[in-house]
């Protein structure tokens, strides 16, 4: 186990054993052994002359090879080291299959209409690959059509690639600089920002169609507000993406012209907004979508601040749902503290419907309660129309137009929940989700379980 030193301009014997004798190229450290630590001077600046694969072959997901920018004087972690690519066609930065950890380093592609990207797809990958960047900058100056962040493999039969951006920034220069998902790639982005010129047809997208490409992404505390009205997701989507506590543009576009390649694909935004809002919640999939709506709500409905401001869930279905394959909303949770009979329900509203409510083959609730004695095994109950039954209006609500705010025309007010009471066997979770089997409709739901 040794420290390996990298510093441009080092004039010693350049064997990596000290700052004086430091390597002048980071590429000289790719053979670092397990337990070695690569120290890169914060004054280090080099330009690569060819496409380079950062394959620290002795690094594993359990023990990635650390490559840390440090201040030469203090020996403490720092930032400022830079590794740039020269004017090289297809001069990509590639990582893997060995695992590695980078701190404080800026990676920069060449500023031209040229294909240079940050690729995490080196094969063969017979074991999982983990590449971590902390306090780094991925500076995409190249603008060619293949100048993107590419996560995952271009072929089948490889192992997982996980890319972690921790407090790491991505700067872009072109609409071509999207984050592209290939096969078996994962991106965990915790903190940082994306600034510059943004892709116009999806910030995060698939490498293609008709292939086993999947988005697999968790983004937390990242500033994406520079995207303006460029859609965060567009084009073909499969896989799962979750964004939490992110700053978005004031007029952000969550999805536009998405083709769902996977019926179980989903995009979920928790508390992501372009304003001083702390209640946003959005869910998108093949069958429909749900967003928090603060313009239409019931007067005794769920609240999002201490002054009693209300909101509802606005559920909108796509053309891709039916009675047999409905849009299923995220769960609405509550904690039940009784074992006596209850009749839980949700208040709903069908806007501008000439008073019509949805029927039980169109909108229904599915509740889960603790109905099993001695185990946490939940029991489902719903008010869906019986299979091969005849549809009937859902139960009219006692709420009227005077109880709701923001509705238009003459709405229909109704409630959904089990037709008869249920008796929990144990205290515990009582949850509900809303199922909508009617295509291309909107329903407003107060997301609090009433009993």
């Amino acid at each position, binding site marked *: 186990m040794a420290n390996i030193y990298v510093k441009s301009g080092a004039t010693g014997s350049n064997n990596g054993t000290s700052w004086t004798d430091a390597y002048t190229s980071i590429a000289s450290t790719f053979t670092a052994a397990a337990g070695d630590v690569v120290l890169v001077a914060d004054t280090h600046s080099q330009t690569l002359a060819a496409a380079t694969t950062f394959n620290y072959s002795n690094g594993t997901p359990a023990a990635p090879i650390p490559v840390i920018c440090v201040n030469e004087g203090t020996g403490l972690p720092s930032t400022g080291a830079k590794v740039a690519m020269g004017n090289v066609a297809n001069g990509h930065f590639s990582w893997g299959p060995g695992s590695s950890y980078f701190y404080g380093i800026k990676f920069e592609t060449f500023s031209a209409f040229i294909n240079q990207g940050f690729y995490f797809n080196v094969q063969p990958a017979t074991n999982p690959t983990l590449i971590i960047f902390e306090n780094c900058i991925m500076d995409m100056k190249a603008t060619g059509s293949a100048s993107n962040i590419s996560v995952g493999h271009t072929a089948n039969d490889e192992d997982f690639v996980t890319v972690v951006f921790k407090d790491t920034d991505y700067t872009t220069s072109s609409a071509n600089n999207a984050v592209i998902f290939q096969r078996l790639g994962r991106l965990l982005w915790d903190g940082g920002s994306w600034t510059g010129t943004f892709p116009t047809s999806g910030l995060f997208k698939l490498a293609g*169609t008709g292939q086993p490409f999947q988005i697999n992404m968790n983004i937390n505390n990242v500033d994406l507000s520079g995207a303006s009205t460029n859609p965060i997701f567009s084009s073909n989507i499969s896989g799962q993406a979750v964004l939490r506590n992110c700053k978005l543009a004031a*007029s*952000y576009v969550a999805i536009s*012209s998405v083709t769902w390649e996977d019926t179980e694909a989903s995009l979920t935004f928790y508390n992501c907004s372009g304003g001083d809002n702390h209640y946003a919640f959005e869910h998108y999939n093949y069958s429909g979508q749900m967003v928090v709506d603060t313009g239409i709500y019931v007067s005794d409905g769920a609240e999002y601040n201490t002054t009693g401001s209300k909101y509802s869930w606005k559920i909108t279905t796509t*053309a891709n749902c039916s009675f047999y394959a409905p849009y299923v909303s995220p769960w609405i949770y509550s904690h039940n503290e009784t074992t006596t009979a209850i009749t839980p329900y949700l208040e709903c509203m069908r806007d501008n419907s000439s008073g019509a409510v949805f029927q039980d083959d169109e909108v229904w609730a599915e509740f889960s309660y603790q109905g099993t004695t001695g185990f946490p095994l939940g029991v489902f109950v719903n008010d869906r129309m019986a299979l091969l039954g005849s549809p009937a209006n859902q139960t009219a609500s006692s709420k009227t137009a005077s109880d709701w705010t*923001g509705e238009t025309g003459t709405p229909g007010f109704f409630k959904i929940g089990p037709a008869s009471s249920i008796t929990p066997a144990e205290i515990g979770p009582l949850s509900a989700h809303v199922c909508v089997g009617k295509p291309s409709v909107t329903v407003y739901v107060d997301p609090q379980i009433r009993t």
Partner: protein
Amino acid sequence: MPIQTHTLETTQQANGSTHNVLRMYDQDGKELIATFYATVDPSSLVAGHIALADAHLAEQEFNEIVSVE
């Protein structure tokens, strides 16, 4: 198949923005959706979404032709 018709459903939000669901249909009735918040007149943003949808549909059509051949 370019987008032929569209509908825009807008709801005013408490913070002054609007939430918008834009449904776009090609001549075969295929639906594409855009969902966005807007602090400006949302109708001014519709053309951009339709252009994106047109490009997406054209790409899909091209891919279908290529895969058949």
